[in-house]
C-alpha cells in the first residue's frame, strides 16, 4: 500500500493549531489554494486586513466599489475555472456586493464572499454599519453562513468552498463578526470537510443516457443545444462536446453563456441561438425532431414564446441541477449529472453501439440548415462614413483573433453584437452577464480576468452607458498596471432601451439618450491611462492596433452609428420561426399586446 501523502495543511503543520479568527481566515484561504482576493476594507474586517498585511502568498486587489470586487471575482472565476474570492466590510460593504452576488447566482459562478459583521453581542442592536447580511443575501446566494463560534470558523470556510464549487456552482457568503476575528480557536484543515449532507449527483444514470442515445440515433433533424453548464463543467466537457458533435454529425448551437465550448470555426456550428441568435440556429431549434440540451436551462431569452417553442421535438436535457428539469419546458429524457460525466458515457455508448443516423435524412437536414444560413441573418449594411458597431466588433475580432484574447462585455446592444461577431474557439474566453444582465459587469470582470492572466489581451466590449456604472475600477486597473482595454461602442444611447422604445413604444425615446457624457479620452487621461478615439471607418484599424500595442490600460471611444438596431431579433412574445431579419426589418412580425408585457 502506498504511503499516505500528507495534506497541504499537514505539511504546513497548521491543522489543529491554535490561532485567532483573522489568521484562521487567511490559513483557510491558503489551504484552499487561493492566490488572489478582491476586496475593500472597513471597520468590521480590520483584523482580517491586519492579518493580510503580513502575508505575501495571497494577493489582495483593492477595488473601488464592492460591486467591482464581486464582478472581478467572477471574471477571475470564469476565466480560470477556480472559485473567485472577495472580502468586504459589514453594512454598506455587504449591500454593495449584492448585485455581484446575484449576478454570480444567476450565471452559476463559484464565489466565496467574506463579509465583516458587527460583534456578536451587538447583532440586532442597529449598531453602526450593521445590516442583516445573511438575511439580505439569502435569496442571492447558493448558501450563506453567520459564524457565531470561533470553533466553527475554519470548517465553515472549507465547507463554503465545497458548496460554491460542487453541484451547480454559485456564490457563498460567510458573515464573520468582528469579535470572532479576534478570538482564538483551533484550526481545522480542509481535507476532511465536504458538507454533512450536501452531495450533488455528478454521474448520470445509465438508463436515460442509453435512452437518449437511442433517440439520437433515430433522429432525422437533431440539434445540440449547449449552455453555460458545459463551461462550468470544465475543459474536459468542451472536449467531449466536440467529440460528441464529431461522432454524431449533429449541428451545434449555444446560449450566450455557453459560447466557446464549441469552436465557432467548425462547420457544424450554427451560431448563438435565442432573442438575438442566428436565423439558422433558431430555425433549427424550431424544426428539429430531437433536441439535446447540454447544460442549458430553457431560459426565456432562448425559448421565445413557450407555446411555440420547438413543437415537434423530443427533448433530452442534461443538467446538474434537478430543479432545471421541467421548469420551463417539458422534457422527455432528463439526465441529472455533470455535463462532462454524462457526455463521457454518452459518447462511449454512442460509439459502442456503433450508432449511426440515417445519412439521407441528415443530408436533407443539413441542406435545410444551409438554406437558412443563406439568409445571412447577421449581415448589416456597412458604411464608409460612420463606423457601424457590427463592423467595429468584426475588425476587433480580425485584429485580435490570433492573440491570447479574453473578452468581457457590459449589457446592451454592444453585448449582443459582441456575441454575434466575435467568434470563440475555446471555453473560458468569454465573460458576460447573462442571467441578470448587469450593466457595469464588464470593466471589473476584465480586471479579474487580467489579474488571472497577466500576459493576455483582455478587452471589455462596452457601451458608453454601462461602462459609467463601474468606471471607477479604471483606478484599480491603473494601480495594479492591468493593461485592460475598454472598447466602448459609443452610440450615445442606451441603445438596447432605445431599440425597444422604437419597436414597442412608437419611438418615444424616454430617457434613453446618454446626455452629458464625459470625454472618454480625457477621462482615460485623468485616470492615468491611455485614451483613444476612432470616428471613421478609415482610422478604425490603426486605432485598434494602437490599442493592442499599448501596454497600459486603454479606454477606446469608438464613435458608432447612433441609430443602429441589433438584428436578427425574436420579438418578445414570438416564436423562433418569427424572427425579424435585417432585410425584413420593416415588414417583420410585430410585437403582440401580450408580448409588450414581457421584458
Amino acid at each position: 500500500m502506498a504511503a499516505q501523502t500528507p495534506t497541504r495543511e499537514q505539511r504546513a503543520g497548521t491543522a489543529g493549531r491554535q490561532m485567532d479568527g483573522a489568521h484562521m481566515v487567511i490559513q483557510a484561504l491558503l489551504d484552499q489554494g487561493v492566490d488572489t482576493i478582491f476586496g475593500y476594507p472597513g471597520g468590521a474586517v480590520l483584523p482580517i486586513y491586519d492579518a493580510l498585511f503580513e502575508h505575501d502568498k495571497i494577493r489582495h486587489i483593492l477595488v473601488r466599489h464592492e460591486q467591482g470586487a464581486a464582478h472581478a471575482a467572477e471574471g477571475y472565476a470564469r476565466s480560470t475555472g477556480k472559485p473567485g474570492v472577495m472580502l468586504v466590510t459589514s453594512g454598506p460593504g455587504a449591500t454593495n456586493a449584492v448585485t455581484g452576488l446575484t449576478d454570480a447566482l444567476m450565471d452559476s459562478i463559484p464565489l466565496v464572499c467574506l463579509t465583516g459583521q458587527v460583534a456578536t453581542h451587538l447583532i440586532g442592536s442597529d449598531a453602526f454599519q450593521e445590516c442583516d447580511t445573511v438575511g439580505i443575501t439569502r435569496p442571492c446566494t447558493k448558501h450563506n453562513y453567520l459564524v457565531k463560534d470561533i470553533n466553527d470558523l475554519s470548517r465553515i470556510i472549507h465547507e463554503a468552498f465545497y458548496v460554491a464549487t460542487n453541484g451547480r456552482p454559485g456564490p457563498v457568503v460567510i458573515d464573520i463578526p468582528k469579535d470572532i476575528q479576534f478570538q482564538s480557536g483551533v484550526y481545522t484543515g480542509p481535507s476532511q470537510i465536504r458538507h454533512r449532507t450536501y452531495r450533488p449527483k455528478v454521474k448520470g444514470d445509465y438508463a436515460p443516457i442509453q435512452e437518449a442515445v437511442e433517440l439520437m440515433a433515430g433522429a432525422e433533424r437533431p440539434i445540440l443545444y449547449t449552455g453555460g453548464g458545459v463551461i462550468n463543467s470544465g475543459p474536459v466537457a468542451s472536449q467531449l462536446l466536440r467529440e460528441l458533435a464529431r461522432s454524431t454529425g449533429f449541428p451545434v448551437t449555444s446560449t450566450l453563456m455557453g459560447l466557446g465550448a464549441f469552436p465557432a470555426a467548425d462547420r457544424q456550428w450554427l451560431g448563438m441561438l435565442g432573442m438575438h441568435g442566428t436565423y439558422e440556429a433558431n430555425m433549427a431549434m424550431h424544426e428539429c425532431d430531437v433536441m439535446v440540451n447540454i447544460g442549458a436551462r430553457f431560459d426565456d431569452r432562448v425559448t421565445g414564446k413557450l407555446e411555440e417553442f420547438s413543437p415537434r421535438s423530443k427533448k433530452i436535457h442534461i443538467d446538474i441541477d434537478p430543479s432545471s428539469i421541467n421548469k420551463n419546458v417539458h422534457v422527455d429524457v432528463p439526465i441529472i449529472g455533470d455535463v462532462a460525466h454524462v457526455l463521457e458515457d454518452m459518447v462511449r455508448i454512442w460509439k459502442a453501439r456503433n450508432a449511426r443516423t440515417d445519412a439521407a435524412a441528415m443530408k436533407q437536414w443539413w441542406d435545410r440548415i444551409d438554406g437558412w444560413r443563406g439568409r445571412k441573418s447577421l449581415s448589416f449594411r456597412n458604411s464608409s462614413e460612420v463606423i457601424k458597431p457590427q463592423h467595429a466588433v468584426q475588425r476587433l475580432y480580425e485584429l485580435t483573433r490570433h492573440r491570447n484574447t479574453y473578452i468581457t462585455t457590459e449589457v446592451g446592444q454592444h453585448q449582443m453584437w459582441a456575441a454575434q461577431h466575435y467568434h470563440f474557439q475555446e471555453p473560458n474566453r468569454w465573460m458576460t452577464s447573462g442571467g441578470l444582465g448587469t450593466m457595469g459587469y464588464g470593466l471589473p470582470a476584465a480586471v479579474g480576468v487580467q489579474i488571472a492572466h497577466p500576459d493576455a489581451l483582455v478587452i471589455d466590449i462596452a457601451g458608453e452607458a454601462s461602462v459609467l456604472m463601474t468606471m471607477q475600477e479604471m483606478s484599480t486597473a491603473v494601480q495594479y498596471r492591468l493593461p485592460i482595454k475598454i472598447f466602448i461602442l459609443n452610440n450615445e444611447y442606451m441603445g438596447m432601451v432605445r431599440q425597444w422604445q422604437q419597436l414597442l413604444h412608437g419611438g418615444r425615446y424616454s430617457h434613453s439618450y446618454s446626455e452629458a457624457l464625459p470625454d472618454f479620452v480625457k477621462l482615460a487621461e485623468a485616470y492615468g491611462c491611455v485614451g483613444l478615439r476612432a470616428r471613421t471607418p478609415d482610422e478604425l484599424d490603426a486605432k485598434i492596433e494602437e490599442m493592442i500595442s499599448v501596454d497600459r490600460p486603454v479606454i477606446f471611444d469608438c464613435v458608432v452609428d447612433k441609430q443602429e438596431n441589433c438584428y436578427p431579433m425574436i420579438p418578445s412574445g414570438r416564436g423562433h420561426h418569427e424572427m425579424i431579419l435585417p432585410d425584413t426589418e420593416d415588414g417583420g412580425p410585430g410585437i403582440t399586446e401580450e408580448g409588450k408585457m414581457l421584458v
Partner: protein
Amino acid sequence: MPPFIKDAPIERRTLSVLVDNEAGVLARVIALFSARGYNIESLTVAEVDRASHTSRITIVTTGTAMMIEQIKAQLDRLVPVSKVVDLTAEHEAVEREMALVKVQGTGEKRVEAMRLSDIFRARIVDTTHSSFVFEVSGAPAKLDKFIELMRPLGLVDVSRTGVVAISRGPEGM
C-alpha cells in the same frame, strides 16, 4: 408560469423535508416559497434527532403535478436540505394535526360543548366555571369540523399545530 404547467389540475400534497437544524434553515424554506410564488397551507417544524441535528419540516402545499415536482426540486437544492419526500403521491401516509380550542359559555351551550367533545375524543386540558380548553387531534378535516361545531357554542380561540405526517408501513423516510 409555463403553459404546460398552467393548465393541469391543482392538487394538495404533503411534503416531508429533512433538514440540518442550522440557523436560518426555516427562513430559507419559507423564503423559497414566497420568492417562487408557491403556496403554503401549513408548515410545521421541530428537531427530530438531536444527535444528528436533524429537523423535520412538514409542508402542505397546492399546485399542479409539475409545480409540485418543481417545489420538491427547489427544496432539495437548498444546501441544508437532505431529503424531500412527497407523502401524498409516493406513499400512503398518516396525517395528524392537533388543536387547542377555547370555548366560553354556561348552561345548555356548555353541556352541548362537553357532549360534542366526547364524540370527537377531545380532552379537556383547562376549565373554569365558564370555559373549557379542548385538546383535539386527528386529520385536519376532523379539526375543521370540530371547530365549526364549537363556533355557535362560544368559540373564543383556536390554536392549531399544522399537519405532521409519516408514511405507513415499516420503512423510514
